[in-house]
């Protein structure tokens, strides 16, 4: 349970840390935490398929995606472009949104979950955490101008959805796991590839410069 609360903290840091390499490291820590949660689930539910899930998550989110992110961040520009809102205001807005979401899922958990084995703790906290991270990810997507921060936001959204996937339906098949994980890695890689090309063409990773096409 403390692990999942730590995940909210790491998401905040990943969004707010201006030094992009630091943000990527924070994301990596969070992904390792996710893999740890999956392992704990596997142990408490006696479901060996979840160990497999945990290994896949560690490989893709803990190693591959951060490696890709770092590779491109170092190549391009390691400091974030000024976001749209000032830091303190941005933190207050984000925090309020997260609290509301967390509280709603926490109190409505019984209506969302059907399997009796998945009711109660730690699933309740974890699902609420997943919802909170989802909101943080969307918040990053909407307010950040730096393309890398936007990609990190997308990664947070994906993490949140995978956490909710395991909290709601742990008995997922291997083919689906491989498919979902491959999709995530490829989409991050393609996005970074395009961002690097944008940087080469325009000399910036500020998404405000990407407004030639309008109307």
């Amino acid at each position, binding site marked *: 349970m403390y692990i999942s609360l730590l995940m909210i903290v790491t998401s905040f840091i990943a969004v707010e840390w201006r030094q992009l390499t630091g943000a990527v490291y924070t994301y990596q820590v969070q992904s390792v935490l996710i893999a740890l949660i999956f392992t704990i689930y596997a142990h408490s539910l006696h479901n060996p398929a979840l160990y497999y899930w945990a290994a896949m998550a560690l490989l893709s989110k803990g190693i591959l995606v951060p490696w890709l992110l770092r590779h491109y961040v170092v190549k391009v520009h390691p400091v974030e472009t000024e976001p749209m809102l000032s830091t303190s205001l941005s933190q207050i807005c984000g925090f309020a949104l997260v609290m509301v979401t967390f509280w709603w899922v926490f109190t*409505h958990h019984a*209506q*969302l*979950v*059907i*399997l009796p084995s998945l009711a109660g703790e730690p699933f309740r906290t974890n699902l609420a955490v997943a919802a909170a991270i*989802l909101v943080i990810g*969307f918040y990053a*997507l909407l307010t950040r101008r730096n*393309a890398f921060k*936007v990609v990190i936001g*997308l990664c947070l*959204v*994906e993490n949140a*959805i995978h956490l*909710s*996937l395991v909290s*709601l*339906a742990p*008995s*997922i*098949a291997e*083919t*689906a796991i491989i*498919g*979902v994980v*491959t*999709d995530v890695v*490829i*989409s991050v890689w*393609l*996005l970074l590839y*395009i*961002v690097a*090309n*944008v940087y080469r*063409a*325009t000399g910036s990773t500020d*998404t405000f410069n*990407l*407004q*030639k*096409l309008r*109307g």
Partner: protein
Amino acid sequence: MTESTLLIGLFSVPALAAVLEYSLGRKLPELTGKIGIAGATATSGLALALLRKLFTGGSLDALDGQLRADALSGLVAVVVSFVGLAAMLFAYPYLRHEVVKGKFPAERLRNYYALSLVFISTMTAVTVMNNIIMMYVLVEATTLASALLVTFYGTPEALEAGYKYLLLCSVGIALGLLGCVVLYSAAVPFVGGIKAMEISEIAKVAHQFPPLVALAGGMLVIIGFGSKAGFVPFHAWLPDAHSQSPSPVSAMLSGVTLKVAIYAIARIATIFYPGHSALGLFCVILGAVAMLFGILVAFHQTDLKRMLAYSSVSQIGYIIMGLGLSSYLGFYGAVYHLLNHALDKSMLFLCSGALLYACGTTSIAELGRKKHSSLLAVCFFIGAFAISGVPPLNGFWSKFAIYTAAAQAHLWWAFGIALFTSLLTVAVLIRVGYTIFLQENEHEEEPVAPAPVRAETAPALAAAGGGAQAFAQQWDEFLPDALSPNREGETEVRVSYPFGMIAVIVVMAGLVIVSGLNLGFLHHAIDLSVQALLHQMAGG
């Protein structure tokens, strides 16, 4: 051929062709593109065989229920593979011409064909997928396969379009995954384990789901896959991606990728209509907003491809409204309009590609100052009339079914918006057609009607080989002065299109006309598809 090989072949044949295309393309550059066309032809053949097999109703299963096809799958697979084939055939002379003009190096041709084949493969795979999580994986895979096609030219604008496309669709579809997960987890207690991932199994137990779960799951699926289908307000990627990608890719994106996402919604969300009329109403409202917004924005576009893209946003609105009405007629209109829009809009995008080929621009005003082949004009107007729903053509019948369904459901506001949008569509498309093809040279249009593309087969073949250089230089040189409207003798030096390009457009225009002729087999195929949807709604 057994059932399972047919279903698996449908997506593995183009995937295999992609591998061949990529690996052989380096050693044998003269084969580049031909393998692609062969692969796309084989896929169309398989899709037709599949539809024929399903023509007596029922469904086919493979891989222990993971793959499943009914008439709706067959119909969408035929549309996907056919538009894919048309785009491949069109791309062959078109891209070679661009290589000659120096827009990109010839080595990248094989990347284009290989990616296109992967793109077709992912789309056909969606049509036969019965696993709800894999459905998400494949719809996301269509985005991934096409993202590099959108950025193919590598210009800053194309990169911007690709970035928006990839980001918005990935985030949107992530919500779709959340919806799929919610629905799957709800089905686990009733079906158990891995079987609960099969859409056909979920349909059987859908009525037992708790209301909040069914509603939240359905909404997330509609919004998530809807962002890929270009629903307002998630459409921002659509006009950019459509206008910046190579024209054959625009045709595929608009013609079939949007339809594949709609297909996923039709497969999953309609299951929950009976218990939750709010979902249906949600779709009708989304459809009404999309159709009106799309056409109003299309009205003041200055770029032909952007205008067509916004018109696609509007036409998708009709399909989703038809799906939301959830009656026989509504579904009939939706499935029929899905087919019609795929044919009409991909034809119109190929027309815009031909215009770009000849004039080097897609700006409506600049195109209006030049002279164009009248055969192309006829095709453009057939497409424009068809998509606006002018009576004898296919678009009219599908829209008519949707109007009638809206009236039957006593949703008069929806009926009014749909009718009003249709009138606006006529105005927008005819205005554009008039500006491009008729304005200023309407007097000269009559005498040269019959043979604008006469004997241009040779350049088509030449364009493929080395002779293209001379040919391209020749008309690049006389283009600027010869085509200015107030010059004598311009009819002699009309721009000539490769035979292949015009043939594809003419054949598609022919299909647009044919599909409007209330043909028995077409009606039967649509009827079976609608029955499949209704059957699924009634609990599979």
